[in-house]
């Protein structure tokens, strides 16, 4: 239940052993690469190591995926491969390039045949149209004053050409639309032909040259149709070739694919490496959970005895200004709430992980405000339905289901089932009948949560070595003392509790003294604690205002928790309103049906809308009243290299 302790690790060793180390680290999903400069900076050896070029295996992987995509082949699934392939890069590359060359030559042939097919199709359509007018197609090129051009263009370029035709003296007519490309003819005067040529060039149209003898070829439509059939058959044959070619060596292809994939992952983990000019010695640095360092050492002893591993505590690196990544470790059920923490901001390295307290307080707040057995169950079922329909999922759905569970629990405490308070006996209280008790309970929760927040603030400041702020700051021990004394004074006076009733002067003096301590906290801390530098940047006026603001926020933060009681009562009130409306319509014709509809719709609105509002209010209390007391955030998630996810 904390931010995992990290370490900066550097591996220095021969390239082939580093490859083995990197693969093991990818398998363990415990290593996030970083620039070795961070760890090697200032070392004399640093300048001898050069940064590595880009991952050459990426390109190879791309080529293999290209091959796969064009053959339509599906790979056999593979789990983590724990050995580095022995075939060298150049050999693998040559093999893949050979396969690609074959594939590309086939593709070129298909493209040529497709072009011929499309041209034939367009000319056939055109010749059929000309024949229908009673003329011979071969007469077309002899048009005395006109110029005709056949061409193809992408849809976008065709649109451009046609639009230009609206303002220019030519006609563009589509002949064949194959979905991706348009084959068209343009007609213009002979004088305009040179300009037409330029326009066609500027829309990147491919002009199909037409000689008079080409027109004669299309005079007999049956001959053309026959040729088109045979082109189709040829294209089909060529299309099946890559599949046949690859499926013949299916096992070899799979082996090749996973070998390249493995190396791509290895060099992804080593992408920030530095190497000596002969590339034989390599340095790889990265972040790793400190607890994994021992197993990494054991792995080195077995698999890479010549690799040196240097470990530096993350705290030291953080003090040097390096952004250490954050990895949270929580119990499975608590882990669900990490998403809510991330939504605000991940804790920075070294900061207290608030997930556990957030999980407990979230359940408490939500249940308190939305306590109802029926609505809780409806919420859980609703979330399950949304999960099934893939509208909702992941950790947020899990949190919503836990929230539903808390509603059920508080429903039993309140004795409420779909707003009906007579079905079961309340174990604790009924919010509508015990308004004062509900309000007091809400305020009590508020005081406890704010106090926990302040304690965490003190703890964090002590951890940072800032004793002055921890003891004398308005959010530190002094602030906490002020808060509690003021609270005792208020509770004693309002609740008429004798044990808390002291003379006003005593309370006044104590609060006044603490106020002065907070006001002059910085100079006092500078005198008392070695190394505490008085903060002068903000100026005195700003400091006074910030102290006053902190004191006022005690009141506003505590008062904010009244919403717990308000929403608990609001929930009961809404249920009452739905029941009353249903009762009112019961006396009109068809009233029973209207009443039933009203009850169903009303409760759906309560679960959906009120549930959402309570969810937001819960987060509001967490983020504004609780987190604001101690939490800074700003952390960056630990992102280790993984086998899956390339």
């Amino acid at each position, binding site marked *: 239940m904390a931010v995992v302790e990290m370490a900066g690790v550097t591996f220095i060793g021969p390239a082939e052993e580093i490859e083995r180390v990197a693969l093991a680290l990818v398998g363990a999903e415990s290593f996030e690469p970083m620039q070795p400069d961070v760890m090697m900076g200032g070392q004399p050896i640093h300048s001898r190591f050069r940064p590595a070029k880009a*991952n*050459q295996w990426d*390109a190879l992987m*791309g080529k293999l995926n290209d091959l796969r995509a064009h053959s339509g082949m599906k790979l056999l699934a593979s789990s983590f491969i724990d050995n580095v392939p022995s075939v060298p890069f150049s050999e693998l590359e040559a093999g893949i390039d050979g396969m690609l060359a074959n594939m590309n030559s086939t593709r070129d042939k298909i493209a040529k045949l497709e072009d011929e097919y499309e041209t034939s199709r367009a000319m056939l359509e055109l010749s059929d149209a000309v024949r229908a007018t009673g003329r011979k197609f071969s007469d077309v090129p002899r048009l005395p004053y006109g110029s005709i051009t056949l061409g193809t263009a992408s849809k976008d370029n065709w649109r*451009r050409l046609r639009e230009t035709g609206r*303002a*220019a003296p030519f006609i563009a007519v589509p002949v064949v639309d194959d979905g991706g490309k348009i084959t068209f003819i343009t007609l213009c005067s002979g004088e305009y032909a040179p300009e037409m040529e*330029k326009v066609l060039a500027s829309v990147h149209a491919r002009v199909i040259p037409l000689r008079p003898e080409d027109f004669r070829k299309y005079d007999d439509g049956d001959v053309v149709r026959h040729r088109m059939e045979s082109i189709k058959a040829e294209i089909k044959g060529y299309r099946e070739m890559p599949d046949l070619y690859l499926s013949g060596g299916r096992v070899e292809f799979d082996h090749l694919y996973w070998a390249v994939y493995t190396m791509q992952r290895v060099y992804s983990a080593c992408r920030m490496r530095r190497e000596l000019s002969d590339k034989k010695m390599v340095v790889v640095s990265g972040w790793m959970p400190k607890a994994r360092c021992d197993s990494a050492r054991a792995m080195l002893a077995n698999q890479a005895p010549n690799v040196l591993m240097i470990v530096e505590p993350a705290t030291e690196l953080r003090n040097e200004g390096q952004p250490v990544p954050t990895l949270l470790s929580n119990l499975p059920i608590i882990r669900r709430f990490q998403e809510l923490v991330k939504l605000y901001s991940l804790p920075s390295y070294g900061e207290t992980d608030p997930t556990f307290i957030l999980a407990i307080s979230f359940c408490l707040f939500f249940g308190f405000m939305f306590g109802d057995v029926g609505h809780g169950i409806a919420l859980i079922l609703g979330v399950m339905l949304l999960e099934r329909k893939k509208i909702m999922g992941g950790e947020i759905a899990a949190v919503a289901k836990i929230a539903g569970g808390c509603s059920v629990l508080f429903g039993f405490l309140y004795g409420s089932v779909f707003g009906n308070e007579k079905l079961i006996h309340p174990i604790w209280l009924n919010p509508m009948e015990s308004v004062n008790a509900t309000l007091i309970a809400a305020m009590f929760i508020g005081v406890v949560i704010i106090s926990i927040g302040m304690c965490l603030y003190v703890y964090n400041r002590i951890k940072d070595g800032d004793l002055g702020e921890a003891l004398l700051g308005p959010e530190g021990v002094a602030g906490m003392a002020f808060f509690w004394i003021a609270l005792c004074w208020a509770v004693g006076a309002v609740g008429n509790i004798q044990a808390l009733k002291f003379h006003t002067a005593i309370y006044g003096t104590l609060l006044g003294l603490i106020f002065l301590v907070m006001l002059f906290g910085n100079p006092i801390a500078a005198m008392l604690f070695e190394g505490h530098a008085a903060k002068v940047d903000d100026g005195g006026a700003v400091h006074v205002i910030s102290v006053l603001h902190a004191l006022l926020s005690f009141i506003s933060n505590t008062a904010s928790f009244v919403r717990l009681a308000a929403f608990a009562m609001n929930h009961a009130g809404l249920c009452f309103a739905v029941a009353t409306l249903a009762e009112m319509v019961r006396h009109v014709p068809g009233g029973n049906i209207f009443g039933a509809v009203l009850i169903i719709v009303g409760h759906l609105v309560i679960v959906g809308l009120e549930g959402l509002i309570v969810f937001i209010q819960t987060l509001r209390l967490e983020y504004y009243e609780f987190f604001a007391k101690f939490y800074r955030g700003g952390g960056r998630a630990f992102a280790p290299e993984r086998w899956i996810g390339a």
Partner: protein
Amino acid sequence: MLSGGMIAASVKARIRRSELMGSDELGSLLEKGSVREIAASLAREGAYAQLLRGVDLNSVRRSELEFLMSLALLEEGIVFWRYIDDSHRRLLQAWLCTFDIGLLKSHIRGDAFLAENEEWGHIALDKAMELAAGYRLTLVDGDKLKNAKTLNEIVASVKDRVLREAMTETMSFEGGGSAVLIDGKRAQLAFSLGMAMDRWYFDRLYSYVSEVRGSEGSALRLLVGTRVDLVNLYWIYRARRFFALSPEEALTLILKARFRAKFDVLSAAAFAEPDSFSGVLANTPYAGVFDADPDADDHGDAWREVEIERNIYRHLMSVVGQIFTANKIGFQNIAAYLTLKETEMRDIVAVIEAARYGFNKRDAGAILVRAPVVRETWE
């Protein structure tokens, strides 16, 4: 329904707007005598300090500095990422694709710093990808682009099928593809590919904002639509005046998207003589954008091109002003802010180029979108 996140993002956009560089700061930057002095000034404090961290200010080059400047838009855009919902993230991604396109253009051109200094090119790309971690570059596969040695491989790094096909079509038409990166003869192909990418970018962005409803949609259509119209008009103007293309050829270059300048306006502009181009637009919202500055000395076509570009940005700034004045919550605030940021970056790049090529400061000041107060020391 607007979310709390969108309210926060809108407020953030307004706050960041107030932190943009003022005319005075731009003027001070213009005062600097060299690229290194400008880099040092930017690295000292302000929005660019973080981006320039770790850069050797004593040896920084113009191209390197300009590349780093281009990262600023991505950095700014990502700030809003966590606040907005999926539908708005789609818009933001479409908007920020301009960064991916910039990267692609650099690689296709074989920019000096990428081609001659491969190592720095890789570091720069890594820096961009690190910046985009958690957001992701949507259009380009960064690793593939980094490894690309040929134009075909660069195009293969484009993830969007439609754009990839458009680029492939352009390449197959102009006969490129297998040439290695360093090849000065590829300027024409690089230009055509750039046009294909820009067309894809603006058409897609406009189609996305066209789907947005309500006042948010109207404001976005006003901003993106104005830009689309100005791009169309500018491309026609450029094709006719600077490239001496025929009206028909100029018309084939424009975008599919139209806002207020419909095809009849665009074709009238294309068929008009370049000198009477402004007259055609007299009754449109874009009157004046293409007018020559009567007070400015005529420095030739290149100068005129920059002047028009400046006018276009100034017109866009007036639209941005309308959006902020309307005081409504929505993605339009983010879009308006990003437009302002882009304008600021354009001005800084202009200042850098003025220092690098020793332009007259008074002239350089005149081409900035946010005109600085002219100082007596400027010649």
